[in-house]
């Protein structure tokens, strides 16, 4: 982080092969070094946790041993229980998110293109989105019961809000200069949509998908904790009720891993899709 980074670096000839190798090695070394530093804290916590349970500093009913959590996780994995529940949960997310895509894109495009549609729909949309998912859950339970429909509705609401907003804004904020370029070169409507409108709304659309998908996963966990008889969230509640905290913690680990997987998936898709954008949002 030297101050020289801000200075214009003079042009230089292509570096020879040897420095390039040295550079790669240096990069590797710094990456290994970083990784090692990153592991210090988790390992320390794990060691402390292990010692605490081993020496009985905290009761097993409050904090299960890390080894126990690990074996429980493996048990759940091998018995297939984990997969069954995870499959149920992910199916719910898939249905809810798909519904949100349809609703969100339709609403967003309509409100983005037509001022009239916006005038009729936006206030209601705003009012509905202003109440968080959690607020809707009791009402939805009363109206459609505790079954699958309620969960999918909850997930769909959570995901549809960011998708709608980002779609609408994406369409609204197509830079005027690009549209003028299109006019100068007399693009036909097909060219206009394909070469200007779609690519310039894409970052915004993607932003909507990204928040939509994360919201879907988060609200799934919430709704399964609150009202469900299967799924990964239910497994947690079940573990909590029986005071099997190893099950609870194993589930937390799985939930974190799924969250990470979603995140990685989104990042990879984004870099693929929006290669021309250098800055992150």
């Amino acid at each position, binding site marked *: 982080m030297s101050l020289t980074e801000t200075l214009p670096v003079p042009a230089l000839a292509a570096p020879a092969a040897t420095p390039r190798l040295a550079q790669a090695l240096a990069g590797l070394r710094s990456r290994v070094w970083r990784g090692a530093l990153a592991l210090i804290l988790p390992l320390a916590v794990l060691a402390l946790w292990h010692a605490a349970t081993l020496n009985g500093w905290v009761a097993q009913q409050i904090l299960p041993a890390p080894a126990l959590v690990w074996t429980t996780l493996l048990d759940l994995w091998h018995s297939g229980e984990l997969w069954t529940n995870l499959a149920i949960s992910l199916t719910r997310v898939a249905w809810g998110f798909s519904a949100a895509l349809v609703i969100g894109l339709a609403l967003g495009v309509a409100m983005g293109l037509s001022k009239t549609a916006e005038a009729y729909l936006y206030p209601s949309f705003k009012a509905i989105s202003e109440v968080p998912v959690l607020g809707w859950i*009791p009402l939805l339970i009363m109206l459609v019961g505790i079954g699958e429909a309620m969960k999918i509705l909850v997930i769909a609401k959570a995901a549809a809000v960011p998708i709608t907003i980002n779609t609408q804004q994406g369409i609204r904020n197509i830079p005027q200069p690009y549209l003028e370029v299109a006019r100068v070169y007399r693009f036909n409507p097909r060219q206009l949509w394909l070469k200007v409108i779609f690519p310039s709304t894409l970052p915004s659309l993607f932003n909507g998908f990204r928040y939509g998908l994360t919201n879907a996963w988060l609200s799934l966990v919430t709704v399964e904790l609150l009202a469900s008889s299967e799924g990964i969230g239910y497994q*947690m509640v079940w573990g909590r009720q029986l005071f099997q905290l190893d099950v609870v913690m194993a589930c937390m680990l799985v939930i974190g891993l799924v969250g990470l997987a979603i995140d990685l998936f989104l990042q990879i898709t984004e870099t693929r899709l929006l290669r021309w954008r250098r800055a992150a949002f």
Partner: protein
Amino acid sequence: MTYPIPETDPVLVRDEVPSDKHVQPPALWRWLSQRDWRGFALPLAVLALWWAVTRFGLANTQVLAPPEAVLVEGLHQIFNGGFVWDLLASVSRDLAGFTLGGLAGFALGTLLGTSRLAELLVAPSFNAVKQIALFAWIPMISVWFGMGEPAKVVFIALAAFYPVAINTFEGIRSVNRDYAEVARVYGFGRLQLWRRVILPAASPQIFTGLHLALIYAWLATIGAEYFLKSGYGVGNSMIDGREHFNMGSVLFGLVVVGSIGALLNQFAVRLEHRALKWRNRAA
């Protein structure tokens, strides 16, 4: 000390001045006629449908209470029920958690933003733990802190903690180094550098973090009251309402949850606008 200035008179680039000061004081009819009423069409249609369905016996009124019953229940809650106590309990635990989590988040964000070593040590773990969905912490928190007030406040604090920590970190880390150089040219000490350069430069993003934290803390408040059912709270009253098939209570709670959320949001926006008026929001 006046000198001829050849450049054309400097003129400030001004914000667009809100024009309401210049138009004549709006009469009620004017206000009514200028408003866009089209947004009310959809809600009114839903209301009408709802009323018709219950009025003509097309739905079980045990499940779907008629609108007028909901209204009566709402008024009853406001004037006779424990609504005020529920609201007070919710808002105060919301603020307590927000303060606690915000301070902790600010501290961690500052540490990570200031020290490269701290960033390398802590940031990866922080990032990993962040991936665990917030509500997945509820079972463990209920084991560690019980079902009462401490557990709720801890959970709300956790919700407020993440956005403040992340945004403080990002804000401090991305302070333009050009500004720090200006500080060096004028011989600023460490404290001056913080007070005059780093904090103001990072403040927009810190505010973003606080704003998000305010929203998440309110969400977490309702969640905590659903899951850790003890004592008063808007969330408690909604869960009770559902268990007793009291739709009025549930709907009323829903409106309150939305309104308080919107109010907190508005409050944050106003505060942000005031504190950051040096940013050209018009541009």
